[in-house]
């Protein structure tokens, strides 16, 4: 029986904090029927998600944001299943930021939570809407509702052969109470869920018509770009405003305490104006800060006491220490993971029109509700006077959980009398990110005579994103940072996990996987070390250590599909990793060979996943493929470093990510399941990083404990 502090609040829960804290709290997403003015039948709006018009056309207000992960398709499938319409027949709308509209569901999108959070309430909303339409048809046709069924957007009465589209019943349905707790379909009744469904947003994304925040243009709009203090915490000293104003198309220079923006007719004028400004900066106390000092700070902090995140095998630390001391074999290691940038393809940007009494914003954000609140705070306007139109995002990865792009645009716009688009350069985006935290992990295990761990201590040192964003929930342990360490897939009789909060001047935030991915790299690398020390096959070692049949099943599946039990070709080696995180079980095998350029070439990745009921296998495969490439980029090359108080990396030449010629072939195998749904955005990222490091060990004998791998291998 393990013990965890009851203050453990998940990142997923906190993403909904804006909605939870909203003054207009509604129960669930049930806002009640909205009967509109009489006349032509008004659309039937059974809840905040759905609208059905007099023609029977269904509109879904998507309660999660689309950054590529596929909710456009998967959430629509949830609705289509229960509403009995085709997914392709549903019109999808990206709703404005609204902390109240979706009640407890909120709009925040992160933590691999979209499907998990929507699974019950979205299906329920659709099922209740279907029941309302059936009830309305029963009233119209004067037949028992039990004789009616919904099918392909129509209500059908089999006995009489009557049939009419949903549109015929919207007025009646809108006038009646909305049914509640309509029974949901059982897996044997699924018609849509589990279907290999093509993405619903492809067409617009292949012909250039999809509109991202950066694409918005307003009449009379000016375009600005920004330079923020290169030294962390520095301030703006001087600018040559006259030189900038001489550039054709430059309209204005906006000075802020720690930044400067140039406003022009278009981005190029603003860019040239910025170059002409020759901005100088006043250093801060960080002017001499370098990476070695930062890392030394983490190392030192890790020697101090930690807050208990979890303990197993008795609360008595002395007893745990005794178990460790009595082990037949002891291993200890330090793992270090660097700051990482998000580097989404769409650089930071925000379009807004700020006026004295109102502010209208067009942008792509993962948190339209919370971002609107942040905008209200930054403008000083009441939230009703702030409108936020959300857009598709050119990548999120956690970067767009922060509202700084919007707040910066507001700061600039306060001095500009025109609608404004603020576009960050790639360099600005890279150097003024809020980075994945640096993590410094100390881990130790004692093995029994059979080679299995009998004692395990793990101390995680890193910054706390939760403490920064939600200080009232922080009681010494960052529940997100320790995710995946307080609960591993393995049975170990004595365990102690501690967290040490340590902050450097480098700002940190969520990043695809954050704490869980940190844990997976350390735990799965270290388990590999234990297997090697026990002279056991690393896959079989894991299989024997986990009691979870679902974890065992994905290990068995990945072993079979990767050919684990057959030796790899000469010059190649394989590594394995297993996670049970975000309600998903995933195992991966990575096969590598040597490379003169980067130390190792990733040949092939095989993934096996049990994510509960698969909603859209095509979407799951896309998330896994993409997550693997994203995780490999980070593991191979990802590293943000500081010199002279400045972020050293600036663009894709020195913040390297995988290119197509470096991408492995990927095979994915999904375990059929009717269990409750798991997350999919982050598991593949977390799994592939240790699987690669373990493959590198199998190939080279070198245990990479400090990422990135290319640097560890090539120097």
């Amino acid at each position, binding site marked *: 029986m393990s013990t965890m502090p009851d203050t453990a609040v998940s990142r997923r829960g906190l993403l909904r904090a804006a909605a939870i804290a909203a003054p207009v709290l509604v129960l669930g997403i049930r806002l009640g029927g909205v009967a509109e003015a009489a006349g032509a039948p008004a659309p039937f709006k059974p809840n905040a998600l759905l609208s059905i018009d007099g023609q029977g056309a269904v509109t879904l207000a998507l309660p999660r944001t689309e950054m590529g992960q596929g909710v456009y398709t998967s959430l629509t499938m949830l609705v289509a299943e229960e509403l009995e319409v085709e997914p392709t027949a549903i019109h999808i709308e990206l709703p404005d930021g609204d902390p109240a509209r979706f009640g407890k569901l909120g709009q925040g999108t992160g933590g691999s939570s979209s499907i998990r959070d929507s699974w019950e309430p979205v299906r329920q909303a659709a099922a209740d809407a279907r029941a309302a339409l059936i009830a309305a048809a029963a009233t119209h046709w004067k037949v028992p509702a039990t004789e009616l069924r919904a099918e392909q957007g129509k209500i059908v009465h089999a006995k009489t052969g009557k049939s009419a589209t949903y549109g015929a019943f919207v007025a009646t349905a809108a006038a009646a109470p909305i049914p509640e707790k309509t029974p949901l379909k059982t897996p044997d009744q699924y018609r849509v869920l589990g279907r290999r469904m093509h*993405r619903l*947003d492809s067409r617009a994304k292949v012909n*250039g018509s999809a509109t991202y925040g950066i694409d918005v243009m307003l009449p009379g709009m000016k375009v600005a770009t920004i330079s923020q203090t290169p030294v962390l915490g520095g301030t703006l000293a001087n600018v040559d405003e006259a030189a900038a104003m001489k550039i054709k198309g430059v309209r204005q220079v906006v000075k802020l305490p720690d930044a400067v923006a140039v406003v022009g007719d278009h981005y190029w004028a603003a860019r040239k104006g910025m170059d002409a400004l020759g901005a100088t900066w006043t250093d801060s106390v960080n002017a001499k800060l370098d990476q070695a000092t930062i890392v030394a700070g983490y190392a030192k902090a890790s020697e101090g006491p930690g807050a208990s995140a979890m303990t197993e095998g008795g609360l008595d630390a002395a007893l745990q220490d005794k178990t460790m001391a009595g082990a037949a074999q002891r291993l200890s290691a330090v793992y270090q993971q660097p700051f990482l940038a998000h580097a*989404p*393809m769409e650089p930071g940007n925000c379009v807004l029109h700020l006026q004295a009494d109102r502010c209208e914003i067009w942008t792509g954000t993962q948190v339209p509700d919370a971002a609107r609140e942040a905008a209200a705070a930054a403008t000083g306007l009441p939230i009703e006077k702030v409108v936020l139109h959300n857009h598709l995002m*050119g990548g999120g990865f956690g970067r767009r959980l922060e509202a700084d792009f919007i707040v910066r645009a507001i700061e600039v716009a306060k001095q500009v009398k025109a609608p404004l688009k603020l576009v960050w350069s790639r360099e600005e985006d890279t150097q003024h990110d809020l980075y994945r935290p640096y993590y410094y992990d100390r881990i130790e295990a004692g093995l029994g005579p059979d080679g299995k761990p009998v004692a395990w201590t793990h101390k995680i040192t890193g910054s706390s994103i939760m403490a920064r964003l939600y200080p009232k929930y922080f009681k010494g342990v960052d529940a997100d940072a320790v995710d995946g360490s307080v609960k591993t897939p393995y049975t170990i009789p004595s365990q102690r996990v501690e967290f040490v909060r340590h902050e450097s001047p480098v700002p940190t935030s969520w990043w695809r996987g954050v704490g869980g991915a940190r844990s997976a790299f350390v735990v799965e690398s270290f388990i590999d070390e234990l297997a090697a020390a026990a002279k056991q096959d690393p896959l079989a070692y894991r299989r024997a250590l986990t009691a979870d049949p679902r974890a065992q099943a994905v290990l068995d599946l990945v072993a079979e599909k990767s050919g684990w039990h057959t030796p790899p070709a000469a010059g190649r080696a394989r590594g394995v990793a297993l996670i049970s995180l975000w309600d998903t079980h995933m195992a991966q095998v990575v096969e590598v060979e040597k490379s003169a350029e980067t130390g190792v070439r990733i040949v092939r990745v095989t993934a096996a996943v049990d994510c509960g009921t698969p909603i859209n296998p095509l979407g799951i495969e896309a998330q896994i493929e*993409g997550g693997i*490439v*994203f995780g490999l980029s980070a593991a191979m090359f990802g590293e943000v470093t500081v010199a002279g108080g400045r972020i050293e990396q600036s663009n894709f030449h020195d913040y390297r*990510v995988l290119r197509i010629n470096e991408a492995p072939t990927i095979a994915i195998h999904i375990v059929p399941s009717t269990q409750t749904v798991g997350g999919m955005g982050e598991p593949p990222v977390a799994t592939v990083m240790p699987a690669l490091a373990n493959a590198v060990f199998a190939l080279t004998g070198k245990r990479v404990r400090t990422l990135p791998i290319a640097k560890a291998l090539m120097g």
Partner: protein
Amino acid sequence: MTTINVNGKDRTVDVEEDMPLLWVIRDVLAMPGTKFGCGAGLCGACTVHVDGEATFACQTPISAVGTAKVTTIEAMQDTPIGKAVQEAWVEADVVQCGYCQPGQIMRAAALLAKTPKPDDAQIDEVMSANLCRCGCYPRIRAAIHRAAAQGAVA
């Protein structure tokens, strides 16, 4: 004043000679399908065709365009290769966030125009100019093969 031919039409703009084609297309001609990613020729999000050659628009000053014909993603569905590539992209479910895809499609179409049946190595060599942070690479390969198999250049 500078006149360039974009998607078959002459367009006259009043901009400085060093203004990159990317910003002329996006901010002056108001055609946002061509994307800004890095401004340094490192990511390929801004890829357009200049006389059929896949070109980084962010690295091409308008003065260098001259009488060459510029083609952007907005006109790709009007060409047999462009249409075949777009259809293959949809069928293979390539896109995720989609932001890099106009550039990917422009480069893939230029590849197929020269090499109607590219193998994986040829695809990798050409397409490595374009980054995708969502990691769509395996599907880009598959979609190019699909477009090639359907006789994109027929």
